[in-house]
């Protein structure tokens, strides 16, 4: 992890910490909702990966765009989706982010630049190429970020997109959250290399390894790559080494994890890392943190209670939004 990490202003640190607490609280509630069958189908939690989202979001500006995956709740919240909109969407309510039509795997909010969470592995990556193309042609100075997992680096769409972004020097950041597993398979079982970042060499693109548990480390590398992209110097590939505490989805408990692995990662919890650093720097004390945690819980519980009472979409909604009717 060869990156110097400049300390961020206290207000940025506070925002990142608050967001991580809200994300974790939200994800934990969602797991409960799934078990209670209030969230149907499937759901994928990002507990443990919060720093990847908040560190990136802190860099993004108006006009920048993001595409991500079914495991995208942390990105949506870090970008500014309200917990209410997310909780309502989780339960398929009319007031959800996607009017209840998307669900857990498709948290989308164009108004905050979140162009969509995708349920097809790799499906979101080519779409970011198009967002980067618009930025380049319209000279907006915006960048397009696309998040994906370690397992996704083995699918064709990833490769085609990396190459096209590179040859066109598009302002795209390919951010791989290497959480060590693709579903139930450890990355080394499906991928013959240890550091995915080296795949950037195939496209003559910078490939950088980042400590995904350290929000400030994520911020600093994303910032550098974003500035580079905005300056017209092209795309970058970032490998964020991270870990998901929960199973892959639904009721998976992660029986495939080696003894002690989770425990080791828990010692590098992204919330603790930032929290302790702020305490060391005299920017936070235990009471203030407890208060932060409390307000996160309050926000999530309020949103949850509200969302539960929200109405489902009316039947007519089935046939709307298929085509733009003008």
């Amino acid at each position, binding site marked *: 992890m060869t990156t110097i990490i400049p300390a961020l202003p206290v207000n940025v640190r506070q925002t990142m910490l608050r967001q991580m607490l809200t994300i974790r609280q939200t994800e934990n509630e969602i797991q409960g909702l799934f078990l209670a069958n209030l969230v*149907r*189908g*499937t759901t994928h939690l990002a507990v443990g990966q919060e720093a990847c989202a908040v560190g990136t979001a802190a860099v993004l500006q108006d006009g920048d765009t993001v595409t991500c995956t079914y495991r995208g709740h942390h990105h949506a919240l870090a970008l500014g989706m309200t917990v209410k909109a997310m909780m309502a969407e989780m339960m*398929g*309510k009319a007031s*959800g982010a*996607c*009017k*209840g*039509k*998307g*669900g*857990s*795997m*498709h948290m989308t909010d164009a108004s905050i630049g979140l162009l969509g969470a*995708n*349920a*097809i*592995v*790799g*499906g979101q990556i080519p779409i970011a190429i198009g967002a980067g193309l618009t930025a380049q042609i319209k000279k907006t100075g915006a960048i397009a970020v696309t998040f994906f997992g370690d*397992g*996704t680096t*083995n*699918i*064709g769409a990833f490769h085609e997109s990396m190459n096209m972004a590179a040859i066109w020097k598009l302002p795209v950041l390919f951010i791989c959250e290497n959480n060590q597993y*693709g*579903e*139930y*398979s450890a990355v080394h*079982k*499906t*991928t013959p290399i240890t550091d995915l970042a080296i795949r950037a060499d195939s496209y003559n693109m910078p490939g950088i390894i980042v400590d995904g548990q350290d929000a400030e480390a994520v911020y600093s590398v994303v910032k550098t790559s974003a500035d580079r992209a905005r300056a017209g110097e092209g795309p970058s590939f970032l490998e964020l080494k991270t870990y998901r505490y929960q199973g892959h989805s639904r009721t998976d408990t992660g029986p*495939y994890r080696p003894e002690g692995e989770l425990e080791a990662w828990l010692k590098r919890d992204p919330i603790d890392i930032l929290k302790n650093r702020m305490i060391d720097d005299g920017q936070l004390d235990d009471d203030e943190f407890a208060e932060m945690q409390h307000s996160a819980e309050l926000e999530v519980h309020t949103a949850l209670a509200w969302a539960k009472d929200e109405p*489902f*979409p009316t*039947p007519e*909604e*089935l*046939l709307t939004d*298929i085509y733009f009717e003008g």
Partner: protein
Amino acid sequence: MTVITYREAVQKALADELRTDENVIFFGEDVAEAGGAFKVTPGLWEEFGPDRVRDTPISEQAIVGAALGSAITGLRPVAELMFADFIPVAMDQIVNQVAKYRYMSGGQFVIPLTIRSAQGGGAGFGTQHSQCAESWLMNFPGIKVVVPATPADMYGLLRGAIREDNPVYVLEHKALYNMKGEVPDDLQPMALGEARVVREGTDVTIVAIQMMLHRSLEAAEQLEKEGISCEVVDLRCMAPLDTATVLASIKKTNRLVIVEEAPHSSGWGGDIASLAADEGIYYLEAPVKRVNFGGSLIPYSPPLEDSAIPNVERIAHAIRSVII
């Protein structure tokens, strides 16, 4: 005679074929050590070993290609694409390669290949994880398509598909995995291409498969109380299609309702209707009705998803409409 689930029938068919023929291999994403995303294939990796039962990277095109290449060089592969919604990710390999490979070569290859996927809605998996795929494959001669609706058919048809010396796509309906049913202990691999009249009737023919078949049977029960006698045909195999059984039933009932778990356009329902409008035209005494998604996609929201997928009431309503 033992009672097992549709899910167990898949596992048993795979295990029995892996046991019977050492050329049979099985691979897909997390199908081996983890026993599959739907826990359909537990125990195979343990019994048959990591050479014959393999987990793959997330690479659907390579998975299908690996099946095609091994099939034409002496193995009898079974590949899994977890959700049928992922078929488009490997579509070229399936429809331009697998289905055309024997033909383009002038018959040089025998292709004993099976691909399996879970399909269908009703479980809240959302727009990209709930589709039925049989119609996507049927416009491509060269690949057979099987759609079992019961544990016994699942077992017999999957074994038949694996034994088949041509490419076969077996589509399993998610919503049926927990369905229990009797499977004779000596049940043999079944031939592909035979529909079955699941319920005899005299007033109207209902053609359906998988989840829609079971809902159609429920509708038939209800309508019996209203004095309407429904004959229900389970196609079981979409390619080759058993048109004789369908025609015989139309000849008998003179009325036809087709129930599809899919959008209306360019689906197999049109072929059944066109069969009726051609060879069956002089039997028909009422309009041919199709019950399907119409022009809608599958939303996540539970009440919306329920309204997209034909239910017993909608099926019954369509049947009544051709009786009066």
